[in-house]
C-alpha cells in the first residue's frame, strides 16, 4: 500500500498528540508487529494540539485529535479532506483513488475532470459549452 503512495509521488505524514518518544515505543512494541519493518513514514507530534486546532480536528475535551485526512497538492493547497470520529477507521483505497483523480485533473490543467467513482482509464469529462446536457453520453449508472 505504501509503495502505491510512493509511486504516486505522495508523502504520507501521520500526526497525533503523542510525543515523538511515544511514537517510537508504539512503532517498536506494536506497529512493527502489524507491518513488516514498521511503518516507514514520518510520525509527527502535536503535543500542544495547536496543529490540530488549525485543521479543525482537535477535540479539546478529550485532548485527542479526530481522524482528519487532508490531501495537499504540490502547491500546498488542500484539495480534499475527510474527518471521522474515532471509532471508525478510514479507507486507504479511496484516498488513493482521490489522489489519482486530482493528479489527472492537475496534469490536464483542469481541462479534464473526473466524474463520480472515476478510476484511471475510465472516461473523463471536458467541461465546456458542448458538455452541457450531454454528461449522460459519457457517464450513467
Amino acid at each position: 500500500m505504501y509503495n502505491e503512495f510512493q509511486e504516486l509521488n505522495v508523502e504520507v505524514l501521520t500526526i497525533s498528540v503523542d510525543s515523538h518518544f511515544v511514537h517510537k515505543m508504539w512503532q517498536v512494541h506494536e506497529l512493527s508487529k502489524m507491518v513488516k519493518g514498521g511503518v516507514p513514514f514520518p510520525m509527527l507530534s502535536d503535543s500542544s494540539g495547536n496543529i490540530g486546532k488549525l485543521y479543525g480536528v482537535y477535540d479539546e475535551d478529550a485532548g485527542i485529535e479526530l481522524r482528519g485526512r487532508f490531501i495537499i497538492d504540490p502547491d500546498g493547497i488542500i484539495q480534499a479532506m475527510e474527518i471521522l470520529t474515532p471509532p471508525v477507521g478510514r479507507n486507504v483505497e479511496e484516498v488513493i483513488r482521490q489522489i489519482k483523480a486530482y493528479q489527472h485533473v492537475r496534469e490536464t490543467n483542469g481541462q479534464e475532470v473526473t466524474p463520480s467513482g472515476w478510476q484511471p482509464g475510465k472516461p473523463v469529462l471536458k467541461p465546456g459549452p458542448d458538455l452541457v446536457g450531454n454528461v449522460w453520453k459519457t457517464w450513467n449508472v
Partner: protein
Amino acid sequence: MKELKIGCAKPAAQRAGEIDEANNMDKGEKTMVLAKVGSKAPDFETSMYQNGNFGQVSLSDYTGKWVVLCFYPGDFTFV
C-alpha cells in the same frame, strides 16, 4: 529533515500557522480554523519519529510533492 536536539523539556509543536496570534486576539476562547479545501494548508513545524530517528519537520518541506496528512486519536488506540 533537520536533526532534533533531544532535551528534557516537554516536546511541543514549535510553530503552527498563526495560532498564537489567533489566541492572543480572543484569549483562546475560540480557535480559528484555517484549513479549508481549496485554500493553502496552514504551515507548521514540529518534532517527528521515523525509522529509528527523531527529527524536526515542516509541512513546507514537502512543497512540490503531494502530501496526505493524517490525524488520529492517539498511539496504542484500537482502530
